[in-house]
Structures are given as C-alpha cells and as structure tokens.
C-alpha cells in the first residue's frame, strides 16, 4: 500500500497537523519509504496467532470507589493558555 498526496493530506487532517503543499510533497516519498519497509511484516504467517494484549502476563487491577482526587482547580488551570474565570477558553465552537 502506498500513499499519495491526497492521503497524506487526509492523514494530516485527522492528526490535526497543518501542512503546506511543499510539506505534503516531501512527505509522500518519505512515508512511502517507511510504509514499504514495514510491509515486510505481511510475509509473516499469523493466521493462528493472537494479537498481544499484555506484554507481561497480567490482568487489570481495579480501584475502590472512593473520592481521592479533584478539588485542584488551581493546579488544573495553572498552565492554561487561556484561563477564563475557572474555565479553559477556546475559540468559539458551533455545535
């Protein structure tokens, strides 16, 4: 499988990374080079293999239902580019 500039543009849009036309043109061969290389994985017969789910055999630990956190609004907002009266400000959104 290989990508063209339209695909690169689409991926960049999905990933929310603005790209210029020049960047797209440069990325097409670069990504194809990498994708071509990783495609050797297709050689491996994995028909009867399960995908790895946990690298070290282990299952999920659950915590008890206690309120142990929150009430740290100052800390949550401390690094905000637009701290608006206790809210995070973002450009106006129309839903």
């Amino acid at each position, binding site marked *: 499988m290989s990508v063209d500039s339209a695909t690169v543009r689409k991926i960049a*849009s999905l990933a929310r990374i603005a790209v210029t036309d020049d960047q797209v043109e440069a990325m097409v061969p670069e990504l194809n080079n990498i994708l071509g290389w990783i495609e050797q994985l297709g050689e491996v017969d994995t028909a009867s293999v399960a995908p790895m789910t946990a690298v070290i055999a282990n299952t999920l630990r659950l915590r008890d239902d206690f309120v142990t956190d929150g009430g740290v609004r100052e800390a949550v907002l401390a690094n905000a580019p637009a701290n608006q009266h206790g809210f995070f400000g973002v450009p106006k959104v129309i839903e």
Partner: protein
Amino acid sequence: MTNYSITGATGEWEVVVGLEVHAQVTSNAKLFSGAATAFGAEPNSQVSLVDAAMPGMLPVPNAECVRQAVRTGLAIDAQINRWSRFDRKNYFYADLPQGYQISQLYHPIVGEGAVEIDADEKAGIPVPKTIGVERIHIEQDAGKLMHDQHPTMSYVDLNRCGVALMEIVSRPDMRSPAEAGAYLAKLRQIVRYVGSCDGNMDQGSMRADVNVSVRKPGAELGTRTETKNVNSVRFVMAVVESEARRQVDLIEDGGTVVQETRLYDPDKNVTRPMRSKEDAHDYRYFPDPDLLPLVLEEAFIEECRASLPELPDAKRARYTGELGLSAYAAAVLTADVETARWFETVLDAGAEPKAASNWVTSDLFGALNRLGKDISESPVSPVQAAALLKLVSDGTLSGSLAKQVFEIMLETGDDPAKIVEDKGLKQTSDTGAIEAVIADVLAKNPGQLEA
C-alpha cells in the same frame, strides 16, 4: 405487530429505530480517576490531573463502575464477557482533553441481551415486544462546553469529563415512536431498580442517541441518521416522528438520506446536522495500552447476580399473582422502584395488600399530586400509612374518617393513632363533631394543602 407507518406521496413507509442509551453509572468517583461525580459543582472543581489529561497521567479503573455494568447486564439477561478490554476512540474536540475517549469497541463487558416492552394498546403496541440489546460497554463521559459566556470564546468545564457511562446499544428492533419511548422508559425503570444509574434524564444522567431510518415495508434497511443526546422519553418519540417524516419527504422529493449525526431542537421540534461532528468518521479505535485486559472471576459475577433486587417484570407478576392485585395496580406500583419500595414497606408493616394498593394508588398518589411531591418526599411514612390502614381494618375508623385523618397526617406529620387519640376520633355516627375537629386543624395550617 405495530401498525405505525408514515404516509407519503408514494405510499406507506416503515420506520426503523435503534437506540444507543448513555446511562451515567452511579458511583462516587469517576471511571479512571478519583475525582467526584456529583452534579452541579463549581466549574473544573471535580477534575483531577488525569481528567485534564496532563502529560504522563494514567487511568486506573473504578471497580464499582465495572460491578454496576455487570449487574445491569445481568438484569437484561445478557451475556457477561469474562474477558473484555478498553479501546481508545480517537478524535479532537474541546470537551475531550486526552484526544481520545476510553471506551470498549472490540470486546465490550456485556454482550447480547434483551428488554421486554409492555403492550400498550392506546399507544399502538398491541402485544408485548422484545427489543434486542446488542451490547453494553463502559466508557468515559466528555466535558461540557459553554458558548454564551464570551463573544468569541467557548468555555470548557471538565467536571463531567471521565464520569463513567454505560452505553446500552439496542438492535434496530423498534418500529414506532411509541416503541422507542416504551423501550427507553423500560430501560430507565430497570437501571433505577438495579441502582446502576439514577435515571435523571433532566440532569443528563441518561440520554439517547436515536438512530432512525425509513423503508418501504419489506425493503432493505435505509440509510440511518443518528440524533445525539436526546434527553427525555417524550423527545425521543418526537425525534423518531420528525426525523422519519423528514427522511420520507426528502426521499420522495428525489433526495437521499445522508448518514450523519444530528441534533434535536425541542423548541422547533426539528433535527439539524451537527456541525462539530462533520469529519469525525475515522476514530482509529485501538486497544488502550495504558490498561490491561479486564478479566472477571466467576465468583464476582455470582456476587453481582446475588445482589440484584427483584426486577420490575418479576415484581409485577408477583403483585398480580401472589398479592392478587389488578394488572393496572401492579403496573402502577412497580413503574418506579421508589414506589414499589414504599408500597412494600407498607406491607412489611402489616397492611393488607389490596387495601394498601388501593390506598397508595388513589389516596396517596392523589395527595402527592396535589402537593407536587415525589413519593420520596411524602410527608407520611409507609409505617404511618400501614398504621392508618390498620385503624380502618380493625374498625376504628370508617373509610371517610380515614381520609380525614390522612389529611391531618399530611398537615402535621403525626401518627394516625395520636391524631385519633388527641382528637378523640373513633368510629362514631357523630360526623358533625369530627368535621368540626378537622376544620379546626386545617384552619391552623393554612395554605399548605394547596401548595
């Protein structure tokens, strides 16, 4: 079979409806963080660093949310998956700090189940109908955006962000607004019985994504639209109706239905496309590498099963069978878990079922209605109610006298025996004396009964 259909210029159209219901799991803390879930807190005050997706923060799941999802699954006779796991649903939005929602796509905790909706002749549901439930999975709620606080900015409040939701996904088994409404009402009834969700739709604890398509009877399924976050039974019915109508008109005018996400405007009773979801079609789901597979032990599932209360259908059957109540009374008394609980406390205190049923459904409900109160706010307790019924059954009070005493109980909160004692009320033919006493009590507590 439902005979609901939409009549268009080209004939009759069948409506096909499926619901994805998001029910907030009743828990103290969030699904993956220790922040509180209480409704109505100061903005961003119930947010942990995990909820705000600070760099390096990690999710740790809340056992109670898992337990409640399993109990809900058991309540609808669903498959409980011993092995499930969490996936990430990736998209960018201001109410989603991580840039992904932790959900369960590939291996949900609960599989196939079913919900039975009752016959309701008047609503066009002639016989009970089974609505398939495809799955229940656990996922995180998003934050909240406010658009009216600033001319050029929206404000983000993350208090809800990370609160646990059960997403209960039905099969496209409903064929009318009434069926969709009945299904949602039944689901709400069940989760309230189970205690896994408070069912408060006006606070957003329960909301439905309504999938609607139309087709000519017997034809292939049409393209569906999904109207998001509809927050009442009435609105769900309205959405099915208006969206089906819109689709029929569109198709008959030569257009095609686009698979899209829509929003409902209750003021205008129309749906419109949701702009913020326009390009969110590729969610790139994959297993969340911060979380391991969730493995449920048999003993845990059995504990969940043992903790289930008697469910509404079983209770109703018992009321009509064992207790000998009418189908109507049984339905009314079991409609809401609080009512059933109240009624059964009256029985536990020694009241006779039929008398208690009659009294609760007429006297009590009438009074609560008048007072604008919920049964949980009743000024008279179930034990007091039983005591009152006892005074009637042992002949101390006549029926009409009991009604008068009840009025005093509502006013004063006193026990019926005390009222009878204080006022010297016994069954007597001197109704004039009693009426005088009652008039006196009511005069001293003006206004309240009309509230």
